[in-house]
């Protein structure tokens, strides 16, 4: 008798609990913000708390998305109508799709009022058909190769900004013969490979050449991925593998692991963007330097200052949001130079996109070099895999680069497949 009652009581309790766990309703207006860069979490915390102080009846609920899976998470969210009020979009192809369908609030007016805050390089990320949909957060660039000072000094190698690509290859050869690891990068996610190919193509066809390829609309005319200069760049990437300059097992090594290997002093060179200076600062005993990605003698890139100046992540306002006005105020607030500057530079050591955010701040040598590049880059291209539709860019550039790293795919085959996929995609779009 007793036990039966106890059991029934427990069951009822549990069932009741299950259906009565309701979040306490609050009087505050709540906005949801989804971002994806873990390095600037502290920055967002600061911005949110300051904003909430200015607007006591507003609460901003911040969720950090998985860095690499933002698109996959947003897809069902938008489909089901559960997308947040403020979203960090890091994908131009998605920005285009959703912008064209007016699923983001049009910020063109905002831009015309606050244009001085946003450098011109932002436009290619933030605008679709002349209308603006997002505001940038931080800027970074792909323009340098980093090196391990102790290691290269040991062998009398002195990298400079004037190095040519052959100088660089010679240095790698020398290091390899001494039993050292010349270059460490991790291509499991395919991003390091994509960045190498991007940098090499900037040398052989220039940033403008890359943009011409990316912005193709006609499958039958114009530049192709199978053009000799493009193939040359991809072959240069393949070549680095063949010569054994990359660390062993690169095809399965994560970007993060590779980076820590560099910071632990295991290799000489490391190719990544300017965003890593913040993490390298966490290893104070590690002496590192940088040089501009070496030019190839006689190629287009040699006469230009090319690379990628990236304002990749942008905050957009969901046009189904019922708090668009507050969203606008939030955007206006965080893009104030002093706010961005403190949040993203002082707290997180990243470079805010907003112009003037770094005024008066103490900058490290590398910060200065980075900023110099942001301002003087005259041949800017955009990342392949965020501009092209994913089934073309991510599949045939990012993923395919890992197949090059594993030795499965040749450079020529890479270019052929990419070209075919891009053409198919363009043709399908024409229908």
């Amino acid at each position, binding site marked *: 008798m007793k036990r039966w009652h106890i059991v029934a009581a427990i069951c009822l309790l549990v069932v009741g609990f299950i259906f009565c766990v309701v979040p306490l309703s609050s009087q505050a207006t709540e906005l949801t913000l989804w971002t994806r860069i873990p390095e600037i979490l502290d920055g967002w915390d600061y911005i949110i708390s300051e904003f909430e102080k200015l607007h006591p009846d507003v609460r901003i609920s911040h969720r950090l998305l998985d860095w*690499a899976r933002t698109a996959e998470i947003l897809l069902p969210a938008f489909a089901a109508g559960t997308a947040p009020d403020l979203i960090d979009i890091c994908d131009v192809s998605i920005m285009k799709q959703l912008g064209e369908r007016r699923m983001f609030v049009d910020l063109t007016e905002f831009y015309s009022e606050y244009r001085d805050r946003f450098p011109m390089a932002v436009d290619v990320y933030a605008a679709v058909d002349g209308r603006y949909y997002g505001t940038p957060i931080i800027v970074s660039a792909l323009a340098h190769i980093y090196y391990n000072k102790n290691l290269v000094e040991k062998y009398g190698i002195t990298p400079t900004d004037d190095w040519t690509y052959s100088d660089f290859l010679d240095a790698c050869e020398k290091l390899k013969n001494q039993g050292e690891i010349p270059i460490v990068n991790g291509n499991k996610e395919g991003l390091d490979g994509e960045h190498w190919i991007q940098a090499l193509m900037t040398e052989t066809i220039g940033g403008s050449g890359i943009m011409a390829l990316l912005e193709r609309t006609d499958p039958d005319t114009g530049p192709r991925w199978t053009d000799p200069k493009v193939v040359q760049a991809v072959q240069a990437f393949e070549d680095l593998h063949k010569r054994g300059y990359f660390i062993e097992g690169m095809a399965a090594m994560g970007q993060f692991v590779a980076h820590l290997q560099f910071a632990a002093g295991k290799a000489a060179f490391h190719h990544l963007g300017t965003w*890593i200076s913040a993490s390298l600062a966490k290893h104070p005993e590690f002496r590192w330097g940088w040089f501009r990605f070496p030019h190839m003698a006689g190629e287009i890139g040699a006469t230009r200052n090319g690379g990628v100046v990236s304002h990749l992540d942008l905050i957009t306002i969901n046009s189904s949001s019922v708090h668009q006005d507050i969203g606008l105020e939030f955007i206006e607030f965080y893009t104030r130079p002093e706010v961005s500057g403190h949040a993203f530079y002082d707290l997180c050591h990243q470079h805010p996109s907003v112009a003037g955010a770094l005024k008066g701040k103490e900058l490290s040598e590398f910060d200065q070099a980075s900023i110099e590049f942001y301002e003087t880059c005259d041949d800017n291209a955009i990342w392949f895999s965020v501009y092209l539709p994913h089934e073309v860019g991510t599949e045939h550039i990012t993923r395919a680069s890992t197949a090059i790293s594993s030795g499965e795919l040749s450079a020529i085959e890479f270019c052929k497949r990419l070209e075919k996929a891009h053409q198919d995609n363009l043709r399908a779009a024409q229908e």
Partner: protein
Amino acid sequence: MAKRNLLSIITKSAIYLVLIVLFLMVTYPVFWLLMSSIKPESEIYKSPAGFVQHPTLDNYVIAWRKLKMRRFFFNSVLVSVLGVVGTVMVSALAGYAFSRFRFRGSNAIFLLFVMSLALPAPAIMLSEYILLNILHLLNTYQGIILFYMSLSAFAMVMFRNAFQPLPQELVDAAVIDGCGEFRLFIQVLFPLVKPTTATVVIFTYIWLWGDFIWPFLILQKAGQETLMVGVFTLSTSQYGMGWGFFTAGLSIALLPALVIYLIFQRYFVKGLTLGTLKG
């Protein structure tokens, strides 16, 4: 005679060797993880594989605070515990039904349930998301718990096998005493399958604790993430951290399920041996 003994000694030694090597292979990864989590950062670089020299709990403290693990931990406990209770309730009832009643289509329905064991997650991911949203169960603990309860086929099989061999005399005796069907189940028969219940509890708990696919998809509000989702996001996050911190985070996620398993091992064995045999 001596030859036989020598052969048996060699055989036994070989058997022991294999068992020991296997045991080391099975336990080393966990050992490595736990060791790394209590090593100071410098030691991890110097000697990543071996024993710790200067153990420290700093990594755990940092991981717990910085990763907001208290919230994640709570969420995982909530979802796992309630999910287990729900699953046991639903699957015990169903397993009982299959074992004691012969009705038309019982085999077909049973097979329908078993079919879910072959179900790959992507086959229902998007539809599930949309369905839960329509039912207003998205971003709710209720939603994910109900979802987990619907995938209790394995537990159902175990309960069915456990109830089947129970003697008919017990049932008859209870019925004569005027016992209703449900009371018969709750008071008489269910208590008899304790080992199976224990096994189902442990199994389900381990599965729910370690699952990341569904909480990732279903619990999307900030602060709702479970431990595994937090760990998963941590592993893909970029340049912000060191090994100690990372392995400590992983350990925090690992330990509860592991500890529960180690403590309740013997029930696990009993229940498994009863339940899995008859397909």
